[in-house]
């Protein structure tokens, strides 16, 4: 079975098993693989967690990552960062792991499927009003759609939809195009150049994971935004979306 071919734009098309409307394709399979890997690493990393002063190198590593995530979130939300760490952290770890594993021959990143990126973007799309309403209340949340006046309501709605679409397409486009470029290069150039492209692909994968996670947090934070740090979130959003 050829996993990726030029005429197959998405791994969703590689179906392994079908039963009625239930079908198991490569995207789901590799998603489970990534989930399993993350769970195994989590189990290994957290089985000997200690709150004492002397901790293992693993724990130090994890704590550094969590601290960075918390720090990034805190910059935008100012308070209650731990509430968003699971969602944002999971987004980052899942996308990053998926993107990094493309270095393994035969592995296809689930993030190269638009279905996966759309599902992640939908989760963010739902999370934004969820956190916004749970923090500021429904009225305050909805009021933001009519700022500075009611004429802007359609634009706000369009913005919500378009940024979700942007999240979806940006990640999908980067990862899928990279894989396709590698595939084309393998066909037309010697081995050395695709290896360099693979390394570049790893960098792009990590950056895209970071961008997706940060943008998600920015969107959530904009829903949480109170007047005093609304401007700060806007500036952050502009700087990230330009990447």
């Amino acid at each position: 079975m050829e996993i990726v071919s030029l005429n197959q734009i998405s791994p969703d098309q590689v179906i392994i098993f079908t039963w009625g409307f239930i079908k198991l394709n490569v995207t789901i399979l590799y998603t489970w693989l990534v989930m399993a890997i993350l769970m195994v690493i989590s189990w290994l990393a957290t089985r000997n967690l200690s709150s004492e002063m002397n901790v293992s190198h693993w724990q130090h590593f994890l704590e550094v990552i969590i601290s960075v995530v918390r720090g990034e979130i805190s910059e935008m939300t100012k308070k209650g960062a731990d509430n968003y760490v699971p969602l944002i952290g999971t987004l980052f770890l899942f996308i990053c792991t998926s993107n990094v594993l493309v270095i393994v021959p035969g592995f296809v990143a689930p993030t190269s499927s638009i279905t996966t990126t759309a599902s992640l973007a939908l989760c963010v799309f739902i999370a934004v009003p969820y956190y916004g309403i749970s923090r500021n209340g429904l009225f305050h949340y909805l009021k933001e759609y009519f700022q500075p006046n009611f004429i802007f309501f359609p634009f706000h709605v369009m913005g919500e939809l378009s940024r979700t679409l942007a999240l979806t397409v940006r990640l999908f486009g980067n990862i899928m195009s990279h894989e396709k470029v590698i595939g084309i290069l393998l066909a037309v150039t010697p081995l050395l150049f695709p290896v360099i492209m693979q390394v570049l692909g790893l960098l792009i994968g990590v950056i895209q994971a970071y961008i997706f996670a940060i943008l998600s947090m920015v969107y959530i934070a904009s829903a949480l935004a109170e007047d005093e740090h609304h401007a700060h979130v806007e500036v952050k959003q502009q700087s990230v979306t330009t990447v």
Partner: protein
Amino acid sequence: MHIDWFVLFCQIFNFLLLVYLLKRFLFGRIIKAMDDREAKIAARFAEAEELKVKATEAAGLYEKRNQLLNEAKEKMLNEATMAADAKRKELMEKVRVEVDQVKARWQDMLVREHDAFFYDLRQRAAKQLYATARKALSDLADADLEERIVDEFIRRVKALDEEKSIQIRNAIRGGGNKVIIQSAFSISASRQAQIEEVLKKQITNGFTLRYMRQPEIVSGIELRVNGHKIAWSLNEYLETLVESLTETLQKEAHAA
């Protein structure tokens, strides 16, 4: 672009499941461990701060006590110094008194020894002189010394001027008309009669004469009556001898 809705919902479910699992087994645990450690560190800091405050208080207390101790020590030292000074002065005074006493005793003893020495010297010299004079007189002039002494005594009585005679007479009367003649040797009866006769003729008649032998009067004779005396002895010569000798000794002592 085709989106498979089943796969879409599957992926949403998978992702939410992953969020839950990672929250449960990764983030939750790590955040809890970090928070616990932060709480422990904060508790340690608080404890350290509390200990620091206690230590500062204790240091202040000990510094105050130390200051009090130093003041007490200074006070005690001053008192001890003053007491020592007083005691030293007292002891010095005591020693000075003792030294003065010893010195006085020593000087007394020295004077006594000096006196005893010269008394003894005088006695020995008188005896020797007396013996020498007696022998020389006997050998050269065939005369008796005692006789010559009595002659000299009689001559002195006879040589008394009127005023002196009156004084002695009055003294005899004031002393109950008793006259004692002391001598270092025995005086013969004839010579006693001679003396009595001279006294009666020169001074007065109304008195009782009595003779006493007194060895201390070295080779001499004397009449004592109520503060007045008529005498001759070697003592006059011996006094000169003792004075000369004392002067010589003092000169030698200064030279040493």
